[in-house]
């Protein structure tokens, strides 16, 4: 098979000296061709035995790798079209680099390759956030970097340990401490609770083009790693179920469009993590399928949200309204994404989410928790957001900027894919690892899903007044724990500074007195005071460790 990075490796140095439109056009053409090549399983007409063969051609590609790589190439092509009007060449280049590194992670053949691409992907995503508009993007980017440095550090330890102990780079259960480090890193990147706050902090701060790319690659690459390295790790079931419900509940409270969608990434990744934890063939296939479908509809939702921000210049639901008339195409594409994420039949979310829920039926509590999370998803993304943004006539004090055609085309292509995969699920199922024994258009499944969604619609109609968006901020793990901890740390540092200033002043006056009385004794007394202080610190440290 052709390694996507091989062509881009040649193209990237040229990109640095090229015009932005040329970069985007080339990326679009090359990634579309590669996507077709992977889909139709073409390979190079010659064999390569160079210095680094895995970078040019891959012989042993597993179906899971092929599935993720093809989807990533598709999104890279559409994102290149969507960002056609971007005015920042550096941002476009970083976005392409980020996507390529994510492709590198999923096609990695050994630990070192996996680690290097993973770290480069995280670094590129930090720059995408950091390049966002406004000062808040810089601070959000730094907070993002702190989280991912922690994850990257954990991965480094895990990978180094795995290499030292010759752990295989393949599927397997947890039997070595190195795997726990790798798991921890994957959980941070997958935005698992309580390490999810970077996602709602960073994604809304990136540019409208950057957030589309970010919404696709970081969390889904972690889901790939979880499917590959930790299938059947039982604690993931509980973590995933909690994430699914937690994200949906926080999304119901949120007022900012892109933050609401970010919370929904947490919720949807929860479904995938749950599937990984269950570890059955159907659940693993469901997780992989849901990751692919999520990439499609989430990129469409972020594209639509970006289009609203581009046209109106606002992204708070409380300051928007009646956009359906001003931006009918955006409304149409947003609704395709919304019904897909909500699991409507004939859209891609239905064919993948129902696999995970079906697999979750081995535990009744789990199946109903995931169904409750689906209710929350439809309520917030499918009903609350479109009703107050596109339908309700509460704000009309805006003059929409015309949308570039490139944005509409990109959204149309992704929307079409959501529909095609929903109507012809075998297109997706035939590319999953193993044989899929699941029929989404079984009458019972179809009718129960439609009746569940109907019940939610009725519930929203009765209680929609209570979901009216308001300009309020809500506590999350970062504001409840991390920000107070940071404040306390700042106070401790300030107190230490005061103590230091006081000690210096005292020392100075003592020295002056000593030097005037007996200059020779001054140095030795000062040395003994420092030694005493070091001894006290050592004793306290030992006591702390022993206790």
């Amino acid at each position: 098979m052709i390694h996507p990075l091989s062509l881009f490796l040649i193209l990237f140095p040229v990109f640095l000296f090229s015009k932005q439109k040329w970069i985007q056009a080339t990326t679009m053409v090359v990634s579309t061709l590669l996507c077709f090549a992977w889909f139709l399983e073409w390979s190079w007409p010659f064999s390569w035995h160079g210095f680094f063969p895995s970078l040019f051609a891959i012989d042993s590609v597993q179906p899971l790798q092929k599935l993720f790589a093809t989807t990533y190439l598709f999104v890279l092509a559409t994102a290149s079209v969507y960002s056609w009007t971007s005015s920042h060449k550096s941002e476009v280049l970083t976005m392409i680099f980020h996507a390529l590194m994510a492709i590198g992670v999923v096609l990695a053949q050994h630990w070192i390759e996996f680690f290097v691409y993973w770290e480069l992907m995280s670094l590129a995503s930090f720059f995408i956030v950091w390049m966002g508009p406004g000062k808040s993007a810089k601070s959000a980017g730094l907070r993002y970097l702190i989280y991912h440095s922690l994850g990257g550090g954990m991965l480094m330890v895990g990978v180094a340990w795995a290499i030292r102990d010759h752990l295989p780079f393949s599927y397997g259960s947890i039997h070595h401490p190195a795997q726990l480090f790798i798991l921890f890193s994957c959980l941070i990147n997958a935005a698992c609770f309580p390490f999810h706050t970077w996602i709602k902090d960073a994604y809304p701060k990136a540019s409208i083009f950057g957030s589309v790319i970010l919404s696709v690659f970081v969390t889904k690459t972690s889901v790939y790693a979880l499917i590959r390295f930790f299938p059947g790790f039982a604690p993931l079931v509980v973590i995933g179920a909690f994430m699914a419900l937690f994200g949906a509940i926080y999304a119901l409270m949120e007022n900012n469009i892109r933050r609401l969608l970010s919370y929904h990434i947490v919720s949807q990744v929860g479904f995938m993590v749950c599937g990984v934890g269950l570890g059955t063939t159907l659940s693993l296939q469901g997780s992989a399928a849901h990751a692919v479908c999520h990439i499609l509809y989430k990129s469409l939702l972020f594209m639509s949200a970006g289009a609203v921000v581009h046209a109106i210049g606002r992204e708070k639901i409380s300051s928007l309204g009646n956009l359906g008339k001003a931006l009918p195409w955006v409304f149409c594409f947003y609704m395709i994404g919304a019904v897909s994420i909500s699991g409507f039949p004939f859209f891609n979310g239905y064919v993948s989410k129902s696999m995970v829920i079906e697999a979750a039926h081995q535990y009744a509590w789990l199946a109903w928790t995931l169904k409750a999370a689906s209710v929350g998803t439809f309520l917030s993304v499918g009903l609350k957001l479109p009703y107050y943004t596109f339908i309700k006539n509460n704000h009309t004090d805006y003059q929409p900027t015309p949308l570039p055609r490139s944005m509409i085309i990109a959204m149309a292509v992704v929307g079409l894919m959501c529909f095609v995969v929903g109507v012809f699920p075998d297109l997706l199922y035939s590319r999953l690892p193993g044989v899929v024994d699941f029929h989404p258009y079984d009458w019972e499944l179809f009718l129960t899903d439609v009746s569940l969604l109907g019940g939610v619609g009725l519930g929203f109609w009765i209680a929609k007044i209570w979901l009216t968006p308001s300009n309020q901020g809500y506590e999350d793990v970062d504001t409840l724990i991390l920000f107070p901890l940071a404040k306390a740390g700042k106070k401790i540092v300030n107190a230490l500074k005061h103590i230091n200033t006081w000690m210096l002043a005292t020392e100075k006056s003592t020295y002056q007195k000593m030097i005037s009385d007996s200059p020779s004794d001054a140095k030795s007394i000062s040395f003994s005071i420092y030694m005493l202080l070091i001894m006290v610190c050592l004793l306290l440290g030992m006591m702390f460790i022993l206790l």
Partner: protein
Amino acid sequence: MKNILIYFGFGWVASLGLTILVRFLLKPILRNRSLESEES
């Protein structure tokens, strides 16, 4: 038919339950005034 009613009822009750939980319990508890000033 029974399953359809169960699922319809679950959808209805869960959506109302989540709305009430969010509006009357979580929103008042988790409201953060400093974030409001930051946001605006």
